């Protein structure tokens, strides 16, 4: 094993780029980096006045990047003879498409948000930086590249959260994000150091091999693993590292909050799943789990950690969301709850017999979540624009005045709750299936009942819109043309995939992730 080639350069000659294998597979990431520079230059050259050039350029760049992602195929390793830096496979491609789609929608939302933030060019630069980091992250297979990409995503996130310079809340959001974020990064870096020191390699696969071979009683390893997990938990807004999330999502511009809630979270899951898929735990045979036994089978340490974190995350998110009336803040808590559901399914990736199903479920869920959550954030964006308020009471009677918008929003909320016949139900069903398959009935029940609890707060906007009559104070959301098209475009998949065709999409997702399941 040639360990740490990047750090020690023991075989000096290998570090030249022409020896790097399959460099072309990195095309999307490379292109996104180029786009950062392009946007920067464009911003410098034409600095006067607002321009519609930026969003179109951005969208074009995103489409090209998506094309590059799709054009790749198979399972390609980028790196040196015996050292992989990146693995470009179905799982990575699936997540990269999620990032890119979320970014495209965010660009559109920002344009249509009607706010003159100024500095449009800057925002696009940051956005492409974030995308490059996320895409790299989704394919990273070793610690150094992973950490750099992780920090790239974090820093761009801080900048985007503080994009509203004029608002105190925006500044608070960015401040909190930076402080919590740097602490989490530091903790994670410490964890990585411990692992690196013990394993002597930066390759995930190598680390897992060493960990599995090592005596499980080495405390430094588990401290390292826990600390590293903390970094992920922070990014995914998982318990107990979720405290930044409501404040940041509330203070950030709504489109940015949506981007953070979907893309940033997806990035953390993408890399987390890649690592988890490397750790084989003997799959539980469908059998007869003993009742009263919290962990139905002999669960590994990592599994226990994930399950406990997930249950706490979803419960905390849902309970805290119950009292919210600020829609943007409510969606922040709801995104914490959804991180909990996703974490529960992630813990099942460790089990070899359901790993593929769990990966498929999470990939599928992100595709659905992209539509329903960004749809909800888009409506919040419009509320801020036209109603000057993101409180649910601002929606009073709106459903009667704007039935199409109201209906679409109800469908999104129902989908977020996870009720049939929407795609949200299917997504949740797929998420919980591996959990039940492995016999964790208690945790599945907690998760499912959490869904019922979430109904209470998701029903609040429905109640305001349809159960209350409009009065003279009711302002309308100026949602016509392109705005409405966006709403409808995000709603239609929720219904269509809820009753028909989700099987096909799930099959595609399954085929995409199947390669990873087999290590």
């Amino acid at each position, binding site marked *: 094993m040639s360990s740490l080639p990047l750090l020690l350069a023991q075989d000096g000659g290998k570090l030249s780029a022409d020896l790097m294998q399959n460099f072309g597979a990195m095309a999307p990431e490379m292109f996104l980096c180029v786009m950062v520079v392009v946007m920067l230059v464009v911003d410098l050259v034409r600095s006067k006045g607002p321009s519609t050039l930026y969003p179109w350029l951005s969208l074009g760049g995103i489409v090209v990047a998506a094309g590059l992602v799709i054009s790749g195929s198979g399972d390609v390793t980028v790196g040196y003879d015996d050292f992989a830096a990146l693995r470009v496979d179905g799982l990575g491609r699936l997540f990269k498409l999620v990032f890119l789609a979320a970014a495209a929608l965010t660009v559109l939302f920002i344009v249509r948000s009607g706010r003159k933030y100024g500095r449009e060019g800057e925002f696009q630069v940051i956005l492409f930086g974030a995308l490059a980091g996320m895409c790299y992250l989704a394919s990273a297979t070793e610690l150094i590249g992973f950490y750099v990409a992780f920090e790239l995503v974090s820093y761009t996130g801080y900048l985007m959260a503080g994009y509203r310079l004029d608002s105190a809340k925006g500044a608070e959001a960015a401040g909190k994000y930076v402080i919590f974020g740097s602490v989490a990064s530091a903790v994670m870096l410490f964890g990585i150091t411990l692992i690196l020191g013990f394993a002597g390699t930066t390759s995930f696969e190598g680390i897992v091999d060493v960990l599995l071979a090592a005596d499980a009683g080495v405390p430094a390893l588990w401290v390292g693993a826990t600390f590293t997990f903390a970094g992920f938990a922070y990014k995914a807004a998982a318990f107990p590292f979720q405290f930044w999330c409501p404040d940041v999502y509330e203070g950030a511009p709504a489109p940015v909050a949506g981007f953070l809630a979907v893309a940033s979270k997806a990035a953390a899951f993408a890399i987390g799943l890649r690592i988890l898929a490397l750790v084989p735990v003997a799959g539980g045979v*469908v059998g*007869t*789990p003993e*009742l009263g036994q919290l962990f139905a089978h002999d669960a590994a340490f990592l599994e226990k950690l994930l399950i406990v974190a997930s249950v706490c995350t979803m419960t905390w998110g849902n309970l805290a969301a119950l009292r919210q009336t600020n829609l943007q803040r409510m969606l922040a808590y709801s995104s914490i709850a959804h991180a909990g559901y996703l974490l529960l399914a992630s813990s099942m990736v460790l089990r070899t017999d359901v790993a593929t*199903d769990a990966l*498929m479920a999470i990939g599928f869920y992100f595709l659905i979540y992209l539509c329903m959550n960004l749809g909800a954030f888009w409506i919040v964006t419009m509320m801020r624009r036209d109603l000057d308020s993101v409180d649910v009471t601002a929606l009073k009677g709106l459903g*009667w005045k704007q039935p199409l918008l109201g209906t679409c929003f*109800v469908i999104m909320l*129902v989908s977020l709750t996870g*009720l*049939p*016949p929407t795609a949200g*139900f299917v997504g949740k*069903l797929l998420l*919980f*299936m591996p959990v*039940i*398959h492995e016999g964790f*009935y208690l945790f*599945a*029940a907690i998760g*499912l*009942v959490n*869904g*019922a*609890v979430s*109904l*209470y707060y998701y*029903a609040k906007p*429905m*109640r305001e819109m*349809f*159960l209350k009559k409009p009065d003279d104070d009711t302002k309308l959301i100026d949602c016509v043309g392109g705005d409405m098209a966006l709403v409808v475009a995000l709603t239609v998949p929720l219904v269509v995939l809820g*009753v*028909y065709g*989700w*099987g096909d999409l*799930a*099959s595609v997702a*399954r*085929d995409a992730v199947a390669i990873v399941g087999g290590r």
Partner: protein
Amino acid sequence: MLLTLLTFLPALGIPFLFMTKDVKTQRMIGLATSAAAMLLSIWLYFQFDPELTVLLADTSQFGFSVPWISVGDAFKINYSMDVDGVSMLLIVLTGVLGFLAAVNAMSIQKNVRGFYAMYLLLLTGMFGTFVAMDLFLFYMFWELMLLPMYFLIGIWGGPRREFAAIKFFIYTMVGSVLMLGAFLAVYFQLSAAFAAPEFAGQALNAFSIPDIIAHQSLIFPGNDALRMVLFVALFIGFAIKVPVFPFHTWLPLAHVEAPTPISVILAGVLLKMGGYGMIRIAFPWFPDAVVTAWPWLATLGIVSIIYGAAVALAQTDWKKMVAYSSVSHMGYVILGLASMTEEGINGAVIQMFSHGLLSGMMFLCVGVVYEQAHHRDLNRFGGLLKLMPKYTFVAMIAFFGSLGLPGLSGFIAEMFVFFGAFKSELPHAKVFTIIGTIGIVMGAVYILVMIQKVFLGEPREKQLHPFKDLSFREGVTLWPLAIGALALGIFPTPAFDLIGPALHSWRKPFVAEIRGTEREAGSLPPGLIEIRDAVEAVQTEEGK
């Protein structure tokens, strides 16, 4: 395909609602669509051969199954529907009540289009639930009912409608997610079991309700505790809908706040979903758990009967009284089903049908007076007999039927339930039954007190509102139900013929389970059990 047509016929009316702005036309569309669904359901009833009790068999009349969704080879979901006698009876009930409630809803003024759109969607959900034979499909229809109901109560309901709507919504959803969890657990067990070589040629599907029932013994064989947990999860899911004490607290609120036509549907059809779910899913999947849980089931049934009656007695709000009477009457269903005798289960299903007719009538009756008096305070009425003789006549059929007066449907149902429960071989059945009969007395008390307060005596609020007697439209909604209640009370044979064969074969695994338990417990010497079985077999043959 006829069942697909029946299910989606109501939903087909929704687009037409949005083509016209004229309120009257919208009402006509709602009415015509529900009338068409009713006629189709009745036509299906006359076509139906109740002797075909095997669901989704090649011989089934209306049954079919086509592949719907599959994810690789991971799982396959079929779009499958079928009916047996029990679901046929409930479909007819849904069709009839669906139309009559739509007639009643013509008095709704607020956003007529929205009302009928939600209402028709609800009808689709109800029909779908009764015909779905695939778990996924069943669950979809089951949940499809929630959202329209939320809006129907929440928008068109009474003063506390918002709270009532969300309480109904969350209660039902908690129940249904527990159900979903149990579905998935059973699904994984059986799909693993069905992969065994012995089932190679049989094309079994672990989402198919008949396949699961036929192979219920393969669900966690030997693990009684886990089977019990799954049964309890399913039972709670359905018990919330029934509702069985102590899961009933959503019901009075929802019933009282809902507009009259929705109260009718809620009491008449939606509560039957719970009973139907137990018959179709919870009970036959875990016959052993049902037999073990008998004392608990009987207790819950009896507590519901007595508690519902006692609380109904204490009400001053007329509609609330009727709502609590539902808790009481649905308790009979649980008692009858759990008794596992031929009489008991037939009585339970007849009680479901009878309660659908009678509670629908009672809510309509309350609605007639409420629309004129604008209050429902029992203590402020009086002498309606003199003011509204025609109305009083119909109302008496409803309330006396509910009381269990011989000659009306309620009597037949309750009598069979108590006969069955008394005859049951399950432990302490006689004690439970005797305690349960207290409910009959209490039922008589609250109904008679109410009749005395409302209909007898001198008219008290004559000056305030001139009570007009039954209008034509009100008569149209009430009389068919009254005739149904009378017909079922005097000549119930067609109903028993319809449900009898299906319930007869439905009961077999439970009987086997009870006999098996007896053998284990040694309560009867083995020889005696065989003799008794032989005698009963001969009796059954003679009966045919």
